[in-house]
């Protein structure tokens, strides 16, 4: 089965006055049809930028420097403006983190949803559009969808806004949904509902989902496959069970170990010493070197990506 999305050696750099920030520096992964793929990492790891780079939503001083993003066989990075416009919102839809700012506050819900349809040539006629929009809202379990269509965003709660955003994203039946921290701004109980909703919809529509998040718990609930990012690169990727329950990379291990709540003892949490290095000042060789309990001399050279057991990891100690 050929992958829906194949990313090879993606590099997105930001040229600032302080130097070149290599936000994404050689990232490769692939997502199959109908698959839920988690891209997890802490802040500054480059996961959001990776998501945006897939549809070239990078503004100066950032630039997608090199690499290939093959969507359904076509290279997104080489597309002309018209092809790109057809891709965005239609074949690939994005869901952003903050529901407060994702919707235009001065336009009604119906208008915004209709726009998403009309832009890609769907929804002929007012009644047809109305019907499609209402059905989409029903799908995301918004109560009283007909009324909600007439509402303005500020009349909706955060959770509802996010559902509207999801409904809009799905209007054109995209093959791939890219969701950047879609539930981080929501309360826990609402988060659960929205996540389960997204999972169900993706299964129903046969869409793939790229879920970008810092929350390992969310990833473990939602994803089929997971990639862990650190300082601009993927350090480990594989199936969910492989990465989360049998991690090979010391960073992944550390990250999972330092999660509180595993048990009720007041024992000190495992902590990864230090902080993620600034992307302007990365250590020579493996980026995790300065914080790694297993670091050695050989870590001065960046580890090659190894393939073990159908998974990939970049660490000298992974064998």
């Amino acid at each position, binding site marked *: 089965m050929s992958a829906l999305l194949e990313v090879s050696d993606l590099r997105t750099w930001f040229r600032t006055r302080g130097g070149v920030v290599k936000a994404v520096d050689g990232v490769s992964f692939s997502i199959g049809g109908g698959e839920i793929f988690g891209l997890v990492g802490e802040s500054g790891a480059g996961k959001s930028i990776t998501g945006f780079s897939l549809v070239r939503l990078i503004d100066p001083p950032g630039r997608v420097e090199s690499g290939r993003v093959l969507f359904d066989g076509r290279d997104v990075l080489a597309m002309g403006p018209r092809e790109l416009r057809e891709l965005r919102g239609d074949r690939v839809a994005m869901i952003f983190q903050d529901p407060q700012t994702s919707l235009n506050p001065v336009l009604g819900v119906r208008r915004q949803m209709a726009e998403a349809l009309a832009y890609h040539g769907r929804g002929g006629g007012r009644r047809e559009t109305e019907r499609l929009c209402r059905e989409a809202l029903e799908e995301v379990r918004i109560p009283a969808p007909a009324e909600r269509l007439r509402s303005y965003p500020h009349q909706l709660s955060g959770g509802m806004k996010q559902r509207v955003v999801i409904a809009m994203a799905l209007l054109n039946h995209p093959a791939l949904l890219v969701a950047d921290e879609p539930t981080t701004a929501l*309360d826990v109980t609402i988060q659960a509902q929205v996540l389960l909703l997204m999972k169900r919809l993706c299964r129903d529509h046969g869409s793939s989902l790229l879920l970008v998040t810092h929350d390992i718990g969310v990833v473990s609930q939602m994803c089929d496959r997971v990639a862990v990012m650190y300082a601009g690169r993927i350090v480990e990727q594989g199936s969910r069970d492989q990465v989360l329950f049998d991690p090979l990379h010391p960073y992944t291990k550390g990250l999972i170990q330092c999660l*509180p709540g595993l048990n009720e003892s007041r024992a000190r*949490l495992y902590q990864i010493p230090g902080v993620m290095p600034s992307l302007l000042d990365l250590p020579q060789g493996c980026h995790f070197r300065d914080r790694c309990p297993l670091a050695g001399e050989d870590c001065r050279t960046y580890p090659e990506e190894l393939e073990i057991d159908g998974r990939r990891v970049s660490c000298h100690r992974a064998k």
Partner: protein
Amino acid sequence: MPSSEVDLLRVEGVFKRFEVKASPLKKVVVHALNGVSVSIGRGKTLALVGESGCGKTTLGKTVLGLHPPDEGRIYFKDREIGDLKPRRRGEVQKEMRMIFQDPYASLNPRHKIRTILERPLKMFTSLDGAGRRERVEETCEQVGLDPSYLQRYPHQFSGGQRQRVAIARAIILNPSLVVADEPVSALDVSIQAQILNLMMDLQDRYGLAYLFITHDIGVVRHLSDFVGVMYLGVIVEYADKGALFRTPLHPYTRLLFSAVPDIHKPFSEEAARMTGEIPSPTDLPPGCFFAPRCPLREEECVRAMPDLAEAEPGHWVRCARNDSGASLHP
């Protein structure tokens, strides 16, 4: 009313309402706290957990005197302080300090770290310049801050370091109670662990009591002694940590626990079935606040708000169904 052995802080029946202008002509009342009673013993950690609108942050600020309660009393070491502004509280205020949620907003951007840390010393101690400097440096060491950072401004630091400054500011006066409002929520996971460890170390070393406000169940599970679950300005369940996690009694508590994405536990069916939004504190449901969303809802639940009752020794619950001993499993 739930209380522990030797109460450091006692909150009794506190109500707090805010009047807010929803539009130029319409004023709405936000019912932030609707009768909250809790207590904290010396050296213990009470975790207050809940989602938005539950009033946990408001309670923390009310305890500190930033909002005078509309009804109810607050006692610190048996002295009533509820209606006293921080300025009027004298020595008491020195004993309770706060750590705020947002490390990017809790430090004055125009003040050097040294200034920020010296201010409480200036206000509450009679130390001279040299004495203050010494104490500041001592505290920096305790929280893992390099003293050379004292000359810098907050924007030069990472979130984790700023929280260390906030913690330093909180403990520099040797308080007995620290109100920590989501102290690690804005931090990365690996930094969270560092800060939580630091807070536990400080607690062990100085016998601090914590009022730990959070929405993160994992954190609660790890470092609390007692837990109060809040919903729309009331405590719906209160117990010691072990009892609460073993047998959560209130339907909201169980919903909360099941909704947390946990690496070792898949989403439960309950979470999948849960519908409904959190009501707004401007528009409280009649009777039990959780009734609209509750799978165990009955007639009596809408008629009146149940009292907080002791279901088992030390385990309090505000639920009509629990009181009658009805089955907890629908």
